């Protein structure tokens, strides 16, 4: 399990989470307003390329190209039905490019923001929920628990599969999922007890 974040020292890396997010949302919104104009979309592509170059001076352009290439299936799924239904190619191509740019812009946010920074931002964002009895520490503890539990559950899955293979059973979704759920939920209940034993309170 690796997060998508790519460390760096660019201005985009250093920008605080909240303003970065707001700028991103504004850009994506702008893009959807002017998104039917091919010239505007090409301008957006140029701007996005520049942003990638700023974030990753060494390989910004190829990073962006990789991002867009990874969207090929999504773009095909979008384009093919529209072409089949007889849409003109220019609006369809413009629209597909607009989507790809919007996604690439949003990816830039993820690429330049460390998970820890986002966790801190989330903790700050849920601060006002204190009034409703939800503590920010509880939120971040729950997030940490989830991140820890993912490799744990994958290990349960592996053990379950090995046990079933050893007994000659052919793994299937149901055969796999039921023991996995039992083991995971028991784990959750034991874990809650261990948390209580270590003095954690909600």
């Amino acid at each position: 399990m690796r997060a998508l974040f790519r460390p760096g020292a660019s201005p985009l890396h250093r920008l605080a989470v909240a303003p970065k997010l707001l700028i991103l949302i504004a850009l994506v919104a702008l893009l959807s307003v002017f998104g039917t104009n091919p010239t505007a979309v090409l301008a957006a592509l140029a701007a996005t390329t520049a942003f990638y170059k700023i974030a990753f001076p060494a390989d910004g352009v190829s990073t962006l190209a990789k991002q867009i290439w990874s969207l090929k299936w999504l773009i095909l799924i979008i384009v093919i039905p529209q072409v089949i239904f007889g849409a003109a190619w220019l609006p369809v191509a413009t629209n597909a490019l607009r989507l790809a740019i919007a996604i690439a812009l949003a990816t830039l946010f993820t690429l330049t923001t460390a998970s820890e920074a986002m966790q801190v931002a989330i903790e700050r964002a849920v601060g006002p929920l204190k009034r409703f009895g939800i503590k920010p520490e509880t939120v971040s503890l729950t997030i940490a628990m989830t991140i820890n539990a993912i490799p744990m559950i994958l290990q349960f899955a592996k053990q379950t599969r090995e046990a079933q293979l050893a007994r000659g059973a052919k793994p299937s979704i149901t055969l796999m999922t039921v023991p996995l759920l039992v083991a995971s939920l028991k784990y959750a209940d034991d874990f809650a007890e261990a948390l209580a034993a270590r003095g954690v309170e909600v």
Partner: protein
Amino acid sequence: MLIEFESVSVSFDAKTALDNINLKLDQKRIGVIGLNGSGKSTFARLLNGLIAPTEGTVTVGDINPATNPKAARQQTGFIFSNPDVQIIMPTVIEDVSFTLRSSKLSKDEIRSKALATLERFGIAHLADQAAHSLSSGQKQLLAISSIMVGEPKLIVADEPTALLDLANARLVSRVLLEQIEQQVVLVTHDLELAAKCDIVLLFAGAKLVEVGEPAPVISSYLAQN
């Protein structure tokens, strides 16, 4: 610390897990033995308020864990059999530091205190590793470190070596019985370990059937089963 049980009973729905226990203990090493389902874990969980008595009163030091679980959990560290369920944070050092989260120490002080504790239990070299990548024995040492860093007065360990191999079981039990200066309540199926305690409690069918010097209690356990 004085551990005192006054007419303590615990039942779950219709099932009695502990039946009228009366006890006064202040020994440093307290062994607890008995068959599966005899009530050992229920006894252990009463000591830090994870379970409250249905009847009677438990007192540990001057704390009643049922009415003041927060204080009880501060003075009592609990070690479970399954090392996996005890890990809260992603890395070894973070998990140990987690115990000190509400202390007034600075970040650096917390880190150095956590490192010193890991050093003490021989796993300082693993400090920055992912906690879930440790072996079971190392995870149990991590659990011990995470508890010891909070300087509890009492350690309760519920079959802490049940899932470990012989070498790791020996290592962990040596740490618990010899290295730790605190009072320890050790629930175990390992009679060799029980024999090293100052006093042994034998549970059978929700009742405390014998309390005393290890040798006679263990031999009557062997004779009964």
